[in-house]
């Protein structure tokens, strides 16, 4: 009986004084890992799905190219456009852009540049193959078709 009495004496509420600390820990984690989007994406981005995904290793070697219908058709029309950095560019300017991106890398890494092409799933192969042709001309042959995962059947 004595044992039971002892138990009932213990307070029933959980000490919550450490709760702010835990929350702060989580907060700091997200503050550190968060990357506020530095680019405004001007084209539609619904990435296609695929199963055989591979991750890229060195993030510094990656340059992004966004392809899709412009979000503001009044300004840029309805045909799929290419966005590099913050602006829409013409397909012809891709060589120039690749060379600029290559200049940002060190001498030894220049030929390892990888282009991550984030193309909308509704884009047709015509513009895509034009971009690929320009990338070949610019000698940036490593290409990644950015896509999201899908459960393999």
């Amino acid at each position, binding site marked *: 009986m004595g044992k039971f009495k002892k138990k009932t004496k213990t307070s029933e509420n959980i000490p919550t004084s450490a709760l*702010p600390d835990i929350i702060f820990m989580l907060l700091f984690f*997200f503050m550190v890992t968060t990357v506020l989007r530095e680019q405004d994406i001007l084209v539609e981005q619904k990435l296609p799905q695929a199963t055989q995904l591979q991750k890229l290793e060195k993030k510094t070697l990656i340059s992004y190219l966004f392809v899709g219908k412009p979000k503001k058709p009044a300004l840029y029309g309805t045909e799929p456009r290419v966005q590099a950095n913050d602006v829409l560019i013409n397909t012809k300017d891709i060589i120039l852009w690749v060379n600029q991106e290559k200049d940002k890398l060190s001498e030894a890494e220049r030929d390892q540049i990888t282009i*991550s092409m984030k193309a909308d799933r509704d884009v*047709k192969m015509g513009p*895509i193959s034009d971009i690929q042709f320009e990338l070949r001309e610019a000698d940036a*042959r490593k290409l990644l078709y950015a896509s*999201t995962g899908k459960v393999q059947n």
Partner: protein
Amino acid sequence: MARSKSRMSQEVNAGSMADIAFLLLIFFLVTTTIASDKGIQNLLPPKQDPNVPPPDIKLNERNIFNILVNANDQFFIEGEYVENTELLSEDIKDFILNFGAPDEDAVALFNGLPQSLKARANRDGKSSDHPMSGGAVVSIKTNRGTSYETYLEVLDQVKRAYFEIYAERVGLTSEQYRALTGKNPAEKALIDKGKEGIPLAISIAEPDKIGGN
């Protein structure tokens, strides 16, 4: 007045601290985008020199696995109309590992394969000679009007066939093989062992000018 002041507790009320932290936490949770650089890798062919004519590589028809996708996203695989790509990767695996007319090196390669892959060798004279360089090529041809999604679906299935072969050779699952980075020598050796003798031969032809812009 002075009395009542002194009666007030000296401690700051920290109970709402958690609420404030929660608000901030939720803000960062919402705004955070954990960047994922995942996708299907592809190596484009080197650029053509206009002064040098493209090398005239003679390949027998039986050594090419033809995949055509038209502007209506319909598949035409090895001369047959196919509804979907469900069986495509299995067909490609059979094609690559056919060993129709292997030379000495290819026989050595065949003997080094695990039993499950050996079983796929149908030795069909109408399919590929051997999986080594110049022996089995998967060709993907699209129209300019083919949708990117469909093209990627096909490429995905072709890659799947290759990765499953590679993974089986080193005794891993396909997922594990794809996750290999080659950062340390052990992983690099595994990657090379999987690929050895069976190069990734995917030919992506220039699209036709039909049905697009």
